[in-house]
């Protein structure tokens, strides 16, 4: 729980500092912007959380998001009447398949997940071009039913909770419940905490590893459809590019132990909120988007250093 406090602390500091400097940041409109940023980061972070708890990392999620966005974009282009849940399901499926590619290489190739996902980061990005033949999926190809997920939602006074946000929060709720109640999650945490002891207790490391990367891919696939819905286009080169940094930063600042064994959904949600807020804060302060990456890097570094210092104290 102490780890969640760090994220909360950073959120309050951010709001206090930026709010003092630019009161507009505290207006409902900027909260709406923040909440619009959150859904994609959140679904990706949920998948990444599982991977991190298992003691691994997945760098390839941005490229998986791109592939799924392209595939679903191409399908809805041909079938504009496709029901939204089917589109979401298709995205999930594409992500699952690509995640399983990662999972299979990591599990049976016994190669460090960092190297594998650096490799597939590149390969899946190439796959985006292959699938799209280098063409961007344009707004005209994406039906209103999908984009309205980002535009519409529940309105509470001046604040709009988009359907995408609600979807991602429902997902987060599901993950939280699963982490708490699903038996498999117990094995996941045990494996991340002490792989050799877990092996002795009959927990199959291969099964855990396989499914966390498969699921992480699936969540990134879902993120791909959300991306299409939010932005209204999918570019094979830029869709999801660099997003892995944002997501890892969110998970890290959300209190997950980066060496595995511990992490919770609440903290991760706070982390996602923080990173979305940083985005909006930068634009409210009139700092251009060029500073984003620097800010993400700083967040990762802070989280990594906090994690390192905490371990040193022990």
């Amino acid at each position: 729980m102490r780890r969640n406090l760090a994220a909360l602390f950073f959120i309050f500091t951010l709001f206090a500092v930026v709010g003092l400097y630019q009161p507009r940041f505290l207006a409902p409109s900027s909260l709406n912007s923040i909440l619009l940023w959150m859904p994609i980061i959140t679904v990706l972070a949920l998948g990444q959380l599982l991977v991190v708890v298992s003691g691994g990392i997945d760098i390839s999620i941005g490229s998986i998001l791109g592939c799924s966005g392209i595939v679903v974009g191409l399908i809805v282009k041909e079938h504009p009447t496709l029901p939204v849940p089917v589109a979401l399901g298709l995205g999930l499926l594409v992500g699952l398949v690509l995640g399983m590619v990662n999972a299979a290489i990591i599990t049976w190739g016994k190669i460090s997940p960092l190297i594998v996902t650096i490799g597939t980061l590149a390969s899946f990005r190439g796959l985006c071009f292959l699938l799209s033949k280098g063409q961007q999926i344009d707004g005209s190809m994406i039906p209103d039913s999908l984009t309205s997920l980002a535009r519409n939602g529940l309105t509470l006074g001046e604040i709009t909770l988009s359907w995408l946000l609600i979807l991602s929060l429902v997902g987060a709720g599901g993950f939280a419940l699963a982490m708490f109640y699903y038996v498999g999650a117990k094995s996941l945490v045990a494996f991340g905490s002490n792989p050799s002891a877990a092996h002795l207790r009959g927990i199959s490391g291969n099964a855990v590893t396989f499914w966390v990367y498969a699921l992480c891919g699936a969540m990134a696939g879902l993120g791909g459809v959300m991306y299409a819905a939010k932005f209204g286009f999918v570019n094979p080169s830029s869709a999801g590019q660099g997003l892995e940094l944002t997501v890892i930063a969110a998970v890290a600042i959300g209190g997950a132990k980066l060496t595995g064994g511990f992490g919770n959904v609440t903290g991760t949600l706070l982390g996602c909120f923080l990173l979305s807020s940083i985005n909006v804060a930068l634009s409210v302060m009139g700092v251009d988007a060029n500073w984003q990456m620097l800010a993400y890097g700083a967040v990762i570094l802070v989280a990594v250093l906090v994690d390192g210092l905490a371990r040193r104290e022990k």
Partner: protein
Amino acid sequence: MKFRALIPGVLLLLSIILASRLSPHFLDARYLLDTSTLYAEMGLLALAMTLVIISGNIDLSVGSIMVLVACLAAKFFEKGLGIPAVIFLSLIIGTSLGSLNGYLIAKLKLPSFLMTLGTMAIARGAAQAMMGPSSVKLPKAFTGLDQSLVLGLPWPLIIFLLCAVLIGILLHRTVFGRWVTGVGSNEKAALFSGVPVDRVKILVFGLSGLMAAGAALMMDSRYGVARHNFALGIELEAITVAVLGGAAIKGGEGTILGTTFALFLFMVIKTAMGVANVKPEYQLTAIGVLLILAVLAERLRREGR
């Protein structure tokens, strides 16, 4: 052990023979030499990456440090600094950034991939914040290094080969090289053997930063312009080359000769893909696959023993 380095050498020969069926240019030394200027920068990163990997670490930040230094150097020129001063400052900055990575990794006992993932974003982010979407031109006097020849060889290739020899000696012939290998083989045992483990890490990452700065200057000279989005994904290529050359991702094993062969192998593969009209995006796919295959082969070789 020693003949391990020859495997990428043999693969290199094979690939040249195969590629020459694609285009007779591959048997033209001039053509290959010209092409090598495109890869010398990445080659410098790969040399340092070999040491980093042998020491049991990884450096994801080299590409970002390289681009940051490249942008800073351009800014220095804008401010009116002379060539020697800019070169000196750039190398100092690169080395310091690398050493800082190493210092934090060593002192806080952080996994190097997490630390350098953070600095990867920070360094490129800093370059981006500094430059914005604009690009900065470099003075004429500084550009065109890749066009000038010494003894019939292009400068970048000479610099790469020189660095390869020096780093090769450093790794294979010096006390420091043994320490690097020792730290990567078993860090705890290295500590228990009186190896100054922290200092080794700082120096290895410092060297990585130094090479990144050198690569940055070569890139500036080649393009004649600096932008924040140059050299994207170059760390992936450097890691791939080091692993192809036989550097064991678990640490403790690898040779500079292997990395050198692997660099030329990589060059031939990429050039051949270019000749065969494979789009850059698909080349990226191929490199990703190549990296995974190289590590897989490495593991299978280990298990076979």
